[in-house]
C-alpha cells in the first residue's frame, strides 16, 4: 500500500478527461464529457442535484463501473495518474478509499475494532503495524471509547465515523466520501464533518466529498466541481461559485444554498456592503458589518435577561381534539419500554414536527398513532376512532402514514397501478379507480411517469408517489417519517410545499424529522421525544432557545437560528426573517 506521503509524485489526485459513461442499455449518457482536476492534498466538493451522476462518478473512479457492473465509457478517469478504466478495483483501492452514503450497507464486521482492522488484515499487514494504525485512527476519529462496542450499539454518525476510520487505516492517499451525511441526524452530520476537518488538519490526504446539502461543507473546501445533468456546470473555488452562480444554486440546480450566504446576499440586495461573501457556517461575526452588530447590542443584552417563555404552544380550542393520546405506554414482549405515559392532543389543521435523537421512540410513537402498533396501556383516539378497535379501512380514511423508505410501501409494477391499488382496496367502481388515480398522479406531477416501475423513480419522485398512494383515501391527517431524507433542495421543497397545501385544506400534517431547517421553516408546533417521553411541546422558536434541551435531544439549531441568536439575541427561523430583524423591518 502506498503511503499518502507519496501523493505529490503525481500532478493530480483525480483527473477526468472528457469522461463519458453510459449505464448498460441506456441511450443517454449518465456522465457527459466530464473534465476536472483535483490536486493532491485538496479538499474538493463534488456537488449537484439528485440524479446528476455524482455517485456514478465515484463508482467509475473506483473501477466498479464500467468494469464490474458493465456499462460503456469514453475518455479517461485517472486516480493518481493511473486510469481507473484499466485497473481492477482492489488495485485502485490502494490509491482511493471510498465511504458510502449508508453506514449500514458498508460495515461487514460486528465490532468497531474488527471493522477498522478488517482491511489491514486483508492486506496482510503485521499485527504490530495493524495495532499502531488502529490506535492512530481511533484517536483521529474520536472512537477510542467505542473500540469494543458492537456496531449495532452505535448511532448513524458514529457508524459513519467507523466507516471513515476503516478507510483512513488503509492510508489511502485519496478519500472519497459519497454523501456521507445524507442518512444522518444533525448531530451525526456535525460529528462527520468535524472528523473530516480533523483529518484535513492532521494529514495530507486528498478529500473528495460528494454532497447536495453544501451548508456544512462549503466553508471547508478548496475546490468545487458542480455536476448538473451529468455535465460539469462549474469547476473552481467556492468563492467563485458563489460570486458567479449563487442565484442558480437553489432555483436551477436544486441545491441547498448555505443560509449564511443567503443572508449575506439578501443584505447586499438591501444595499448593505458585504466585503466577503460567507461560504456557509453559522457565525456572523467574520462577515457581518460591525455597525449592524453594534446596532443590535442592546437587543442581545435584553434577550439575555428575557428568555422566551417556556410555555407549551397553546393548542386548546373549544373543538374536541382530532387526535387524543392518553397515558400511552408501549413495551415489547421482553418488557423493554419504548413509550412511557405519553399524553397529547392535536387539533385538525395543525402542522407538527416530532424530533429527537435516534432510538428515542419517535417512529414507535407515530406507529401507535396510526394503529400499526397497539398500546400496552393507555389509548389513542383519531377522529373519534380508538385505534385498537377500528379496522385498517376505517383508520385509513382518518390518518395516513408514509414510511421513511418509500420502497417499503410499493407493491405494484407501475406508478399508475401503485396509486390505483389503494382506490381498488376501497372497493370503488373501476371508472372511479382510473379517474382518482389519474387525479392523484397529476397533482403530484407524476402522470408522465405513470408507466414506470416505482423502484425506477428518483428518490424525490418515490417519496411523492408514496404520499399520493396514501392520500387516495382522502384522510384528515398524514404522518411522514423523515420526508426530506436524502433529497436535494428542489425535491424537499416541492414535497414540503405540497404538505403545506394539504395543511391549508385543514388536514393535520405531522413529520418525524431530523431536519432542523424543515422544523424552522414549515411547522407551527414541535414535540421533542427523548427516552420514549415527550419532553417538550411548543414552538420551534421556543425550542431553539433551550440549549440544554437541544443538547439532551442531540439537536442542533439551523445556521440561521445560530446566526440570529449571535447577532440579535433572539432566534429567526428563516433567512428572510433574520434579514428583517437585522434591518429593523416591521
Amino acid at each position, binding site marked *: 500500500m502506498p503511503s499518502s506521503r507519496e501523493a505529490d509524485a503525481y500532478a493530480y489526485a483525480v483527473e477526468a478527461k472528457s469522461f463519458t459513461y453510459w449505464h448498460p442499455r441506456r441511450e443517454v449518457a449518465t456522465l457527459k464529457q466530464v473534465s476536472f482536476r483535483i490536486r493532491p492534498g485538496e479538499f474538493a466538493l463534488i456537488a449537484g442535484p439528485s440524479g446528476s451522476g455524482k455517485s456514478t462518478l465515484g463508482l467509475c473512479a473506483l473501477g466498479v463501473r464500467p468494469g464490474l457492473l458493465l456499462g460503456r465509457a469514453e475518455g479517461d478517469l485517472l486516480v493518481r495518474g493511473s486510469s481507473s478504466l484499466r485497473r481492477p478495483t482492489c488495485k485502485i483501492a490502494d490509491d482511493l478509499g471510498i465511504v458510502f452514503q449508508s453506514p449500514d450497507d458498508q460495515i461487514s464486521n460486528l465490532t468497531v475494532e474488527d471493522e477498522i482492522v478488517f482491511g489491514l488484515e486483508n492486506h496482510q499487514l503485521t499485527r504490530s503495524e495493524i495495532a499502531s494504525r488502529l490506535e492512530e485512527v481511533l484517536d483521529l476519529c474520536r472512537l477510542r471509547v467505542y473500540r469494543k462496542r458492537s456496531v449495532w450499539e452505535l448511532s448513524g454518525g458514529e457508524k459513519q465515523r467507523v466507516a471513515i476510520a476503516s478507510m483512513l487505516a488503509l492510508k489511502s492517499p485519496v478519500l472519497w466520501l459519497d454523501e456521507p451525511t445524507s442518512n444522518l441526524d444533525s448531530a451525526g452530520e456535525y460529528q462527520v464533518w468535524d472528523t473530516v476537518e480533523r483529518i484535513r488538519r492532521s494529514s495530507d490526504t486528498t478529500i473528495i466529498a460528494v454532497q447536495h446539502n453544501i451548508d456544512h461543507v462549503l466553508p471547508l473546501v478548496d475546490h468545487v466541481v458542480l455536476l448538473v445533468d451529468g455535465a460539469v456546470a462549474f469547476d473552481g473555488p467556492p468563492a467563485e461559485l458563489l460570486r458567479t452562480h449563487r442565484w442558480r444554486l437553489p432555483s436551477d440546480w436544486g441545491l441547498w444554498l448555505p443560509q449564511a450566504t443567503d443572508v449575506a446576499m439578501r443584505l447586499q440586495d438591501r444595499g448593505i456592503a458585504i466585503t466577503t461573501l460567507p461560504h456557509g457556517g453559522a457565525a456572523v461575526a467574520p462577515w457581518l458589518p460591525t455597525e449592524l452588530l453594534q446596532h443590535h447590542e442592546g437587543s442581545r443584552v435584553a434577550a439575555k435577561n428575557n428568555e422566551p417563555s417556556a410555555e407549551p404552544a397553546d393548542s386548546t380550542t373549544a373543538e374536541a381534539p382530532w387526535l387524543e393520546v392518553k397515558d400511552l405506554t408501549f413495551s415489547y414482549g421482553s418488557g423493554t419500554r419504548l413509550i412511557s405515559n405519553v399524553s397529547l392532543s392535536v387539533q385538525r389543521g395543525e402542522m407538527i414536527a416530532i424530533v429527537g435523537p435516534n432510538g428515542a421512540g419517535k417512529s414507535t410513537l407515530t406507529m401507535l398513532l396510526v394503529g400499526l402498533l397497539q398500546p400496552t396501556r393507555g389509548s389513542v383516539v383519531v377522529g373519534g376512532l380508538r385505534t385498537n378497535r377500528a379496522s385498517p379501512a376505517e383508520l385509513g380514511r382518518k390518518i395516513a402514514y408514509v414510511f421513511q423508505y418509500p420502497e417499503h410501501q410499493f407493491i405494484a409494477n407501475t406508478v399508475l397501478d401503485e396509486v390505483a*391499488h*389503494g382506490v381498488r382496496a376501497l372497493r370503488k367502481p373501476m371508472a372511479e379507480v382510473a379517474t382518482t388515480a389519474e387525479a392523484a398522479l397529476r397533482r403530484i406531477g407524476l402522470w408522465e411517469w405513470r408507466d414506470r416501475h416505482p423502484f425506477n423513480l428518483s428518490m424525490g419522485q418515490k417519496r411523492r408517489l408514496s404520499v399520493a398512494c396514501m392520500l387516495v383515501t382522502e384522510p384528515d391527517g398524514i404522518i411522514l417519517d423523515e420526508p426530506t431524507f436524502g433529497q436535494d433542495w428542489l425535491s424537499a421543497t416541492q414535497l414540503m410545499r405540497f404538505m403545506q397545501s394539504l395543511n391549508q385544506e385543514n388536514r393535520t400534517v405531522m413529520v418525524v424529522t431530523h431536519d432542523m431547517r424543515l422544523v424552522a421553516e414549515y411547522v407551527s408546533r414541535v414535540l421533542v421525544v427523548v427516552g420514549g417521553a415527550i419532553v417538550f411541546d411548543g414552538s420551534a422558536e421556543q425550542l431553539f432557545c433551550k440549549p440544554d434541551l437541544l443538547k439532551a435531544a442531540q439537536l442542533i439549531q439551523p445556521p440561521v437560528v445560530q446566526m440570529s441568536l449571535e447577532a440579535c439575541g433572539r432566534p429567526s427561523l428563516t433567512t428572510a426573517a433574520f434579514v428583517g430583524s437585522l434591518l429593523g423591518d416591521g
Partner: protein
Amino acid sequence: MAARVDLAYREGTSFFHRTDPMSKLVYVIAASVLIINSFNLVKQFSLLAISAAIALLLTGQSPQRYWAGVKLVLALAVSLGITGALLIDKPGPVVVATPLRNFTYRELTDGFTMGLQFVSLAFLALSFVYTTHPRDLSQAVSKWGMSYRYTHGMVLALVFLPILLAEAGNVEKAHRIRDFGATMNPLQRRLQSLRHLMVTLVARSLRRAETLACAMDVKGFGMAPHRTYFKEVEWWRPGQVFAVLSVGATIAFALLFNTG
C-alpha cells in the same frame, strides 16, 4: 425500529468463552449425535438436563437469555412432536382417543421425545452462538484449510440478519397500512403480502449487496489467498480437554445405555 431477536455473541470470560471454537464445535457435534440417536423419553430428558446444565453453568449467560432463544424454536418443537406422534405407528394399548386417530403410549412418548430432541439441540446451538465470536470461528475454520473468503460469510450473516429482520418488519407494516381492509380472503391476502415482501426485500438486498461488495473490495477482501488475523484464536488446554471428554462421554453413553 430494530427487530429484537437477540442471538448475538456477547463478550465474556466464562469457560466456553475461553474455549476455542473448534473444541466447542466438537462438543456440539458429539452431543448432537447422541441427542439425535436417542429415542427414549427418559434418556432424552437426561440429555436435555445435561445440555441445559452445561449451557447454564459454563457459558455465563442468564436463564432468561436461554429462554428467549429456546422460545423461538418451541413452536417448532411442539409441532414436530405432534407430527411425530401422528406419523409414528407403534402397537399397544390406546391411552388417548381422538376423532382423528387413537394414540398408544409409545406413539405419544416417541412424539414427545422428538420435540425434546429439538429443545436439547437448541441449548447446544445457543451455548455455541452466545459464546463464540464469529470472527474467531471464521479464523479457526480457515486454519483447517477453508478459504477465509467463504468463512467470513458467517460474520456477514450475523451483521445483516438484524437489518434484514428489521426491514422485513417495516415492509410488512408498510404493506399492511396500504391494505385498507379486506379486498380478498385472508389466505389470498397473506400470499400476496408474502410476494410483495419478497420483491421489496430482494430488490433492496441486491442494492445493499452491491454497496457491501464494493466496500469489501476496497478493503482488499479476497485480494490475496491468505490474510492476517489481528487477534489470534487462543487454544486453551482445558477447553480442548473438555472437547475430548465430551467425545469420550458420548461413546460411553452410547455403549452403556445402548442408545436408540
